[in-house]
């Protein structure tokens, strides 16, 4: 049986990857609450990103369920189980496979509480690897963006191991459906590419902690411009901001951590101080969460701005396979840098 051999020895300054932090979070929650269980495709052997590695050994097949390739079926099943008081966690191999369960999520899961006049609640976590990772258009969706406009769902996009663990535990305890979207380059799973930045591995305390959903975090303090970015884009933005710091430009990097609910106040407070803002997201530009944030900024903070709001996102095309094309489409550090410098010139 497979076990989690990559888990580091417990020590006070230990550093984990996101997938290690998530495995710890799910284990803690399953030990804490008998109603929590995990289901998904191939999770007996750890699932695609090894999120469930070792879970079967500890919790057995009653609580770690290998499903058929049947997304609408097992999403609906999880909804029903949640209605009756269980707390399912669905591990998706790729977030991209969620679309065959669209009706279950948008029409049933997100609306049942509302339509029933509050008679039911649906505590259900979707563990969704998101974003582009060299696999062509059908494995490269920014899943979080597609669900962004649907009332009734919460959406979390953690970017660091510390955040991932604290947010995941809150997601499991939340009484609503939560889409937990982790970029495929951020898990740090064995054999998978890991986005490099100063925070892609990080300290995760051994003592239990929770991070409330809807609370953003300033990942780097700065005074001249605000960069709001999530997921993999946070790491790229941070790399750019750290490089610019040594060149004498002070950029603040804000990680919303959750898209729904969104910590708009944190961004407004930052913009009021810096008077400039760039919003960076990986998904297609049209209909992105950055558009909503730009509208909020225009509505509430336009008087504080010294320059227009600038967005950096993928153009409105499916994500191409050829590595040179994928890199050209997904916002990279040079685009983020150019956007920041462009605003600083204004």
């Amino acid at each position: 049986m497979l076990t989690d051999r990559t888990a580091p020895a417990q020590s006070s300054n230990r550093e984990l990857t996101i997938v290690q932090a998530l495995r710890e979070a799910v284990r803690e929650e399953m030990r804490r609450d008998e109603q929590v269980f995990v289901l998904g495709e191939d999770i007996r052997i750890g699932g695609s990103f090894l999120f469930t590695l070792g879970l079967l050994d500890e919790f057995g097949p009653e609580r770690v369920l290998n499903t058929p390739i049947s997304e609408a079926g097992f999403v609906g099943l999880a909804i029903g189980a949640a209605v009756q008081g269980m707390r399912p966690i669905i591990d998706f191999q790729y977030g991209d496979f969620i679309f065959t369960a669209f009706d279950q999520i948008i029409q049933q899961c997100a609306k049942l509480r509302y339509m029933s006049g509050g008679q039911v609640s649906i505590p259900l976590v979707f563990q969704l690897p998101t974003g582009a990772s060299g696999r062509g258009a059908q494995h490269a969706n920014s899943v979080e963006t597609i669900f962004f406009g649907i009332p009734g769902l919460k959406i979390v996009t953690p970017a660091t191991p510390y955040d991932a663990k604290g947010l995941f535990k809150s997601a499991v305890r939340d009484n609503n459906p939560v889409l937990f979207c982790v970029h495929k380059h951020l898990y740090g799973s064995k054999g998978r590419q890991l986005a490099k930045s100063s925070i892609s591995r990080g300290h995760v305390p051994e003592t239990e902690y929770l991070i409330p959903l809807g609370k953003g975090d300033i990942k780097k303090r700065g005074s001249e411009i605000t960069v709001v970015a999530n997921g993999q884009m946070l790491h790229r933005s941070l790399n750019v901001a750290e490089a610019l710091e040594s060149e004498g430009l002070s950029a603040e990097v804000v990680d919303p951590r959750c898209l729904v609910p969104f910590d708009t106040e944190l961004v407004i407070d930052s913009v009021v101080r810096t008077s400039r803002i760039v919003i960076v997201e990986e998904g297609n530009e049209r209909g992105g969460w950055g558009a909503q944030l730009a509208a909020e900024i225009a509505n509430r903070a336009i008087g504080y701005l010294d320059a227009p709001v600038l967005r950096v996102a993928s153009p409105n095309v499916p994500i191409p396979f050829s590595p040179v094309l994928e890199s050209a489409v997904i916002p990279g550090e040079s685009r983020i840098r150019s956007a920041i410098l462009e605003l600083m010139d204004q």
Partner: protein
Amino acid sequence: MQELSIRLPQIPDIAPLEPFDADLLRAMYRQMVLIRQFELKVNELFLQGIMPGTIHLSLGQEASVVGACMALEADDVITLTHRGHGQALAKGLSADSLMAELFGKETGCCRGKGGSLHVGDMSVGALPALAIVGASSPIAAGMAFAFKRQETGQVALNFFGEGTVNKGDWHEALNLASVWKLPVVFLCENNLYGVSTHISEVMAIEYVAERASSYGMPGSTIYGNDPIIVFQTVMAAAQRARSGGGPTLIECLTYRRGGHKRDDPGAYRPREEVEAWFKTDPIPAFRARLLKDERFSPSALDVLEEAVTATIDAAVDFALASDTPALTAALEFVYAD
């Protein structure tokens, strides 16, 4: 174009009522009459322009839903379809809260947030209806999953129409329920038509229940206008589910007396088929059957029917007198605390 194969009712032998408790038989008849009168009243209110929204009546299908729900325990849970008034009443929703919901009133079972297409009341084991065809089947399986895991002994019953059985969600639900031996009863009200489309146009086998074998579960096709047959079949399936035997597929052959919804006269149906099925109206048939039993008299059934009429009238009064929701209610219940 394929020829429609007209499906005429095949009425089985009428079983004697003697083995059944008089209270059970009376309750069965009362529930069927309640649903019939409720829906006739709803239709009238709709035609008068008093009732908002849209309605999908289940006139003619009362025996299936009443027989099925009476075979369940009070804490068993059903899922409902877009044609769900009868299913709701059969599981025990009050006529008051159901009528108020149809009027979009605050006192409705879903506080006016659901309407005709989403009626339900968790306190009587009726998950508010899911109006998208096929969607409720995996959710019913999921509730059954929780019952099994929590060892509550409860059963989930999934109502759906024959139009559902070509949807992926439905097949995925049957497969999962069977693989994991979940305590769920899949109950098809086969009224032969998905809106205007006859089942023979869209399914290459004769009976829905034939599909059970491919999922390794028992399936049976029964005459759905006899509440006793439905009751006995669902009782057996529920017992099997409760004892760990897994799911069952039951197909109740029945017929809509009206069209798909209120503005549909159902003119696409062959006259021969309509006439034959209309003769099988389950309510007069069951009344006549009761009256052959010395435990029931015409006057007693008249009293029962009049009491139901009073209940319906009171429900209309209750709904009309109820407040509409405060406008702030539109923003409530999006998220749970």
